[in-house]
């Protein structure tokens, strides 16, 4: 029944949340000295399965063998005792505690921060991490936090490591650093599972891929025997083509003109310095940059949500007349057809109301249209049904509160609604953050459709490969400054990577 010399063997494990079947009779083997990529669409149960290994959830049925012995993992503590450590997608760190305190959290030994610091430094040296044990977590960048998470797992002596979307928020350089560390751990004989949606990373780092579809285990294959399209077909269950169809822009006219935009945030930190560019109709302007380099402020300034220190933002009408957007309130700006879909890091923070259902969330955009004091629910219900169908949103129904949907599905609801409002300008940030490859391409195609309709799209993205494939032009932001605007058809990835980090790239993290 169980595989020989596997570090972990999962057999027939199922887990349901209410009526939603997250995992159904899953079998999976994880070996030492190997990096396994766990693939699947959003909501296919990857994270749930791994959460059962790390003791967060308890399986409804099935067996788990660790090193050939059947074990019951009732709590995270049991998982630690078995050498299983998980780095969660949303970091599990206490902000006000230092790195060392976070790392030694939950252990039983007498609290001795000095000793812990020494051991942390040892681990860092061994694998090449860069962690200051005394630094408070709230002072850290995303990649530093992730490093702390990994050290935390190693500190507990874990030799089975699970990483849930570790690269989602890292720059290409940081990702490279992480992969070096993972390879070193692999050489050290550790078993590593990585969940990611970025297929080129799967090809680069993993030895084997295992695929889940709708909570069921489909199979596993050696990575070198597969290409991206085959893997995706396995995930989706039918063959898909992964091409972003990039038409040459037609009817290009300037639509949004930004001149010398300077923005300070609430704490008085300069987030944008003297930013100037033009967004054209029928064109996708990609915005690249390390997260926190002013992307959010830029979009919010255009949408009228962010007070501006100096500069101009003009909307250029079809007849060439200009209208300043600054000083207008968000409502009148959005009535002019400037639509923003911003997916913040916590997904539900802006744009959707977590406790409201899909239909009501659709209505947030249109609720002012109805006559009289009463709302008209019919159009929003219809729209909700359309969006659910068109974007393949996995949900028990349109009356389910949005917070119960998996992250990727939440995003589809948001993007679907923004596109449905028939915009003239579409501002999107991290539209595919956390989405699986198939849904990502659905979103890319939707954005492309908008472009072909003549919409001016500003697309803030994280994945440089996608930005290069999707955009017509790429603007690189670095520490709130524009460090370059390039033609996406000829631009070079490494060049963009350098532009992202030069010219005071860290200032954005102050």
């Amino acid at each position, binding site marked *: 029944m169980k595989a020989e010399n596997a570090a972990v063997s999962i057999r027939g494990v199922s887990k349901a*949340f209410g009526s939603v079947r997250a995992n159904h009779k899953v079998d999976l083997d994880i070996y030492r000295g190997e990096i396994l990529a766990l693939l699947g669409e959003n909501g296919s149960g990857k994270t749930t399965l791994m959460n059962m290994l790390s003791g*967060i959830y308890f399986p409804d049925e099935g067996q788990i063998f660790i090193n050939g012995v059947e074990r019951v993992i009732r709590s*995270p503590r049991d998982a630690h005792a078995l050498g299983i450590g998980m780095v969660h997608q949303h970091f599990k*760190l*206490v902000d*006000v505690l230092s790195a060392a305190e976070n790392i*030694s*959290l939950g252990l039983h030994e007498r609290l001795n921060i000095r000793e812990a610091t020494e051991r942390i430094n040892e681990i860092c040296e061994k694998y090449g991490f860069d962690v200051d044990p005394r630094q408070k977590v*709230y002072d850290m960048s995303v990649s530093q936090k992730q490093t702390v998470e990994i050290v935390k797992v190693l500190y507990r002596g874990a030799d089975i490591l699970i990483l849930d979307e570790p690269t989602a928020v890292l720059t290409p350089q940081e990702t490279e650093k992480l992969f070096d560390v993972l390879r070193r751990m692999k050489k050290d004989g550790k078993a590593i599972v990585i969940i990611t949606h970025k297929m080129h990373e799967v090809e680069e780092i993993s030895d084997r891929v295992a695929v889940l579809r709708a909570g069921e285990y489909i199979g596993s294959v050696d990575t070198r025997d597969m290409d991206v399209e085959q893997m995706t077909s396995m995930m989706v269950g039918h063959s898909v083509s992964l091409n972003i169809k990039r038409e040459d822009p037609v009817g290009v006219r300037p639509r949004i003109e930004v001149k010398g935009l300077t923005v300070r945030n609430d704490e008085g930190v300069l987030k944008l310095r003297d930013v100037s560019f033009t967004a054209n109709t029928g064109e996708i302007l990609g915005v690249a940059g390390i997260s926190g380099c002013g992307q959010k402020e830029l979009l919010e300034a255009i949408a009228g949500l962010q007070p501006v220190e100096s500069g101009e933002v003009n909307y250029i009408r079809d007849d060439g007349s200009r209208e300043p957007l600054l000083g207008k309130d968000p409502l009148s700006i959005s009535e002019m057809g400037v639509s923003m879909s911003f997916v913040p890091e916590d997904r539900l923070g802006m744009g959707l109301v977590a406790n409201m259902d899909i239909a009501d969330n659709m209505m947030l955009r249109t609720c002012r249209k109805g006559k009289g004091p009463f709302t008209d629910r019919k159009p929003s219900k219809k729209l909700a049904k359309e969006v659910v169908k068109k974007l393949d949103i996995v949900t028990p129904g349109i009356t389910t509160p949005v917070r119960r949907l998996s992250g990727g599905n939440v995003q589809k609801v948001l993007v679907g609604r923004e596109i449905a409002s028939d915009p003239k300008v579409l501002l999107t940030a991290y539209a595919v953050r956390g989405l699986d490859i198939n849904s990502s391409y659905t979103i890319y195609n939707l954005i492309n459709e908008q472009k072909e309709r003549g919409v001016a799209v500003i697309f803030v993205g994280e994945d440089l490969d996608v930005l290069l494939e999707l955009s017509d032009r790429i603007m690189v932001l670095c520490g709130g400054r524009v460090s370059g605007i390039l033609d996406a058809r000829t631009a070079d990835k490494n060049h963009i990577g350098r532009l992202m980090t030069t010219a005071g790239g860290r200032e954005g993290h102050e």
Partner: protein
Amino acid sequence: MLNFLLAFIPRAVVQGIPLLYGCTGEIITEKSGNLNLGIPGVMYVGAISGVIGAFFYERSFADTAAMNPALAILIPLLCCLLGSLLMGLLYSFLTVTLRANQNVVGLAMTTFGVGFGNFFGGSLIKLVDSDVPSIALTATSAFFSKKLPFAGSLGAIGDLFLSYGFMAYLSVAIALIASYVLNHTRTGLHLRAVGEDPYTADAVGISVSRYKYAATCIGCMIAGLGGLYYVMDYATGVWSNNAFGDRGWLAIALVIFTVWRPKLSIFASFLFGGLYILYLYIPTGMDHMELQELYKMIPYVVTLLVLVVTSIRSKKEDQPPASLGKAYFREER
């Protein structure tokens, strides 16, 4: 001036002790992420429980001189702890196990606690058939407020530092111990983690419910002692309904004032104790009694100022525990 201070400070201190108990208890509770607004009620229950214990022990003697000093202290003390513990268990069961709204439960418990105190206080008053609406447990109180024998012979130093009953020193000791445990032990680290981010704490194997239960119950027991101190020492053993007043709320305000630091709360509670009675020392004359009411506001105004200052500075360490007031459910998604 010096004489005024010498007279004022000990009075401020004895006013501050019940607040210190309440504040320390509430800090420990809040560090676990439980916002227990039931503290005023808990202090009432602690007080009346102690009074009931003392009442029956004292009544079992015809001659109070025959009372055993150890039992005279232990019985009210244990009754008080038991009463407050039950309140703590009730709060924890409702908010942690059943995940009820903490504010609602807390406010209900305050109403309940005050009513509970007044009901049994009134019953006891009926039992003794007294002319005045209060009961006096003078003999028990004598044991509680016993001063160090040489305190009187040390002049100003003795008055300032040694003129209090043992529970005053106990309150300071508890605050110091709480401060040490919170900041320098693993238990404290885990407790803070639970209050800041229970999901994280849970993921590293800390039992969130156990910490929440323990912190809330211990916090309630400490707060209950504040009620006991008030009756047995400050009020010289006299229980009358509603005499405890709004000290429980003041204790909760103190928690904010001290930005969740038990060590700071020692001085802060004496300061609040002073502010609480300041109106008695500012001559207003008979024409302007309304000014007194304004002076009584001072502790709350000071708390508001602290809130303003800490939120302007927005230093992470001075903020309330991040998950304060939220119920924890592991499989919430």
